[in-house]
């Protein structure tokens, strides 16, 4: 009986771990998709630096570049995560940007 109880506890623990991992995955997906892309942003000013408006927030070109590169880095480390790039089929293009 003890064996079956410990087995049940182990299964429960594994199930929770999987659930948590799944939640993390959902959160990660949400985080990845929220990264603003310059092509979706409006122009605030073409200057030094350029400024864009994305989802109600003003970003400089440097900031958007940094966010994009960080997102691409995350995807490289975890290929399971969905691509943030709407043209993910053109990965060679995104790398060469």
């Amino acid at each position: 009986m003890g064996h079956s109880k410990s087995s049940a506890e182990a299964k429960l623990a594994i199930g929770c771990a999987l659930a948590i991992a799944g939640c993390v995955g959902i959160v990660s997906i949400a985080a990845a998709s929220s990264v603003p892309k310059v092509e979706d942003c409006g122009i605030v000013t073409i200057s030094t630096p350029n400024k864009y408006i994305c989802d109600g927030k003003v970003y400089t070109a440097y900031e958007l570049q940094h966010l994009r590169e960080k997102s691409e880095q995350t995807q490289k480390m975890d290929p399971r995560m969905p691509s943030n790039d709407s043209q993910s089929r053109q990965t060679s293009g995104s790398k060469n940007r």
Partner: protein
Amino acid sequence: MLTLFKGCTSTLGRRRRGSVVLLSWSAAILSTALLMLTGATSPLYAQAGFAPSVTSGTSAAAATTTMTLWTDPRTGQVFTRPGRGRVPMSFAIVNPAAQRVLQQQLEDQKAETARLARQLNEQRTQTTAVAKQVNDITPAWQNYVGNLKNKVSVGTLVWFDYGLFTHTGWGPQWLTQFNAPGPGNNMYNSFYLNRAYINFLFSPTEDWTIRVTPNIYTMTGPTTNQLVGRNSAYSNSLIGNLGYRLKYAYLQYNTPFKALDIRSMAKDTIQIGEIPQPETAWEEDLYGFRYVNLTTWNWAESSTFPGIAIQGPITFGPEDLQYIDYNIGVFNNGGFHALELTNTTQFQGRVSIYPFGAKWRFDGLGLTSYYTYGWNNATPDTANLPAALKGSSAVQERVAEIVAYTAETWGLAFEYDWGRNAWSVGNEFSSSGPPAAFGLTPNLNAALTLDQQAYANLAGALLGNGRAYQQGFNFFGHYHIPGTRLTVFGWLKQWNPNTQVATNPFDFQYFVVGVSYQWNEYLRFALDTQNTLFYHDQYNFPVSYAKTFGFTAPTGFKSATIPDVVTRDTHAVMLNAEFAF
């Protein structure tokens, strides 16, 4: 000691008489030792007597005296007087006074040593403090250099394009540093470099910013071949060279109203120097595709003037929404690449109202008015000459009324423009025009040359007589195609350079339709078609009517009409690139 003495004598007294002498000498030795211990300084007995001798040394050793005893080396006995087989041995005795002097010297040495030790410690402490100060200084320097990156910005703005002109014609420039030949040169094509800003911005403190921006310009001008000596020449031509000139150079005060604690205007600034005028740079950002074509008033007016201006958003409410955005200033009448000739200045002002509040610069519905009042750039002695038509000395006004709605991914705007003496022959033919309009003789037969001269004179009369009124309409907008890097855009313009003329052959329409591709945060491309359409049907302009505008027929021109005054359209396909950093 006395008991010992008595003991010694009682013992020795029992011995025979010959031993009494030895007893006496023992007593003498004992007495001498006692005296030495008590520190007596005077000789105890005469040296020649039967006692040890004591002498004082030299002045250097005056602190010491010497006592001499004798010893028998064979037996080791010590005697107080010399004798056979005995050798003297001397002892230095430090006298008490000298001892006290020596002691004092020792104490003085100790004190001096202690003082030197304290001095050494103090120096060590000071050295430690100085080293700490030096260490503190170095990080502050490093901190300054490290923070310099937050005070200095260097950027660039480059516009480069390729144009294929399926139909060439005279007309205005679509972009600066952009010239295409006139009629008869179809399929002309060229690469152009339209802009190459180098932006230097330095903000030593949050209150001040200095900007210096050089930019290219196309050198055009007569050939300036040089005669060298009596029989040599160097060829020289400016035309076609791209030189650098100063576009912006100004000081900006970032916080004039922050200092006054006016929160609504905290982001407003004051600029002085060679600065952007209130409308063009603002509209370029509103349109978003300045790298493809000029905005309306920039066809006729410089984007930059020496002057002083105040500008910025005015915000209200808990969310600090922008309800007003303004820019007003006073400037030279001549632009940034002209010598100022007038004794007046011009006023320019733009006010943009956002009735529903704007979260960012162009957010939502915006209503904009722009107005300028000044004079054409002419010296007072020229401007004050009496004349029926002031021509290039006339007062000058410009108006733009713009209604725009802008979202993050699309925008649409309508613009109405009005001007007074704000458009010239040079503006009409800023890309290319008839040679006669520039004081040059075309390579044509005499008849055609004369006709062209008449045409050029007509342009001068209709466009620059000092009583010309301009009117124009614009639609422009863009739309980002969701899920792509593509944005379609367009510009449609109607321009009447002098509404006083019933059918003005110089009226034109201009339109752009294109698609832009955003490569990354700094680089984008556009493929577009651009077209200038002189839309009136071809006709001959009556000389009599032309004369009401100050037309003067060229010498030898006898015709009653000026032939074929509607010039040809221009059509081109362009590939534009912008790199902005």
